[in-house]
């Protein structure tokens, strides 16, 4: 088994689980549409594009948070962590597989959310879509690592937003401003760090 096939098998497991149980993705979809509707009423009439775009980012971060909170719940509830750690794969493959699965959910939610945003508000430009794609990478890599930390704690659902939101501030700055190079930098730094650090987070659980 190579590293790539390990990762593919782990990601496939999560996607298959979601396909059968349909727990995470429908709630993410409903949440993002409901959030955009709320934002429509929260903004006064004739608001600028910039303000609306800022709210898109808030909606996306919170939707991602919803998916990340669910990411390790199955492992925790069924005590699957021990089994995963005992399997002869590199621990970082567990992280990468999970991050890919979360990314797939998030992208699926955005495929609905972005056109909905364009319809509800003032349309989209290519730069925003590119920024969303880059931000997704950063959100999923860091979020998966912090999700693994949060499930070990007593107040799981409460802990992840507290850990993750300060980390997401630079993503929002890069996204709202459309600084694509900054998002690439963020993704590269924190993906590498998460990849290296995941082993320590799960090895003693």
């Amino acid at each position, binding site marked *: 088994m190579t590293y790539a096939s390990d990762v593919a098998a782990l990601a496939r497991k999560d996607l298959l689980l979601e396909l059968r149980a349909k727990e995470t993705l429908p709630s993410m979809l409903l949440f993002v549409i409901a959030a955009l509707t709320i934002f429509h009423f929260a903004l006064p009439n004739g608001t600028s594009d910039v303000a609306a775009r800022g709210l898109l980012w808030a909606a996306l971060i919170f939707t991602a948070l919803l998916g990340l909170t669910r990411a390790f719940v199955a492992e925790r509830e069924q005590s699957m962590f021990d089994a995963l750690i005992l399997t002869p794969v590199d621990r970082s493959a567990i992280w990468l597989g999970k991050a890919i699965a979360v990314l797939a959910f998030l992208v699926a939610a955005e495929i609905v959310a972005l056109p909905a945003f364009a319809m509800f508000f003032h349309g989209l430009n290519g730069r925003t879509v590119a920024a969303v794609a880059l931000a997704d990478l950063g959100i999923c890599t*860091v979020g998966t*690592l912090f999700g693994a*930390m*949060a499930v*070990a*704690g*007593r*107040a799981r659902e409460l*802990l992840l937003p*507290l*850990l993750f*939101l*300060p*980390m997401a*501030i*630079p993503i929002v*700055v*890069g996204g*709202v*401003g459309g*600084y694509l190079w*900054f998002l690439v*930098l*963020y993704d590269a*730094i*924190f993906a590498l*760090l998460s990849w290296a*650090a995941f082993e*320590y*987070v799960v*090895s*003693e*659980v």
Partner: protein
Amino acid sequence: MHLKLPALAAACTGLFGLAVVFAFFYAPADADQGLSQRIFYFHVPLALTSYACFGWGAWKALKYLRGRDERADLESYVAIHQGVIFGALTLLTGSIWARISWGVWWSWGEDELVLFLVLFLFYCAYFMLRFSVDPGPARANMSAVYALFGVVLIPVSFLAIRLSKQFIHPVVFKLQGPQMTGAQFFTFCVCLAAMLTLFATMYAIELAGKRLDCSLRELKELLS
């Protein structure tokens, strides 16, 4: 260890006395801001000390991950605890300074203040993480990883805040050297030394207390 702590405390008291005297009587008043500029001698050393705490905490975290030495875990925790205290004081003094010189308690245009808000939020979550996981190697590992993320987040956040900034902040340190007179710079250095010694003293006190707590708990477990 027995001699180090009193010596540190004495040095800290002496330096702090000197710092207060220098900041209020020796350093010349700022032509533009007058008396209120003197808070600079405490605000900036507080901020720098706070960075030093977070850096020290991350260094100890790295040491823990390499050697699995439980003492390094405790040291990392104590350093970050001190860093949050200094960070909160930075926010407070910065806010007071902003009120006096710009007339607002909070200014999103000031990089340092916003950065400290982000760091404050981030490191407060460190305590939430630490206290929601049972003590043991798993908790030590997670705390260490989180502390390392924090120290990487500092420059990244700083860059992000620079990108999003709106108006001008007085830049004191430039590439050509500090934009201060000699007396001001000297006072600043004394204040910074005082603040760093304060950190070292408080760090040593808290660490001694925590270690005592640990050994007491071990003794209790042995007796029961």
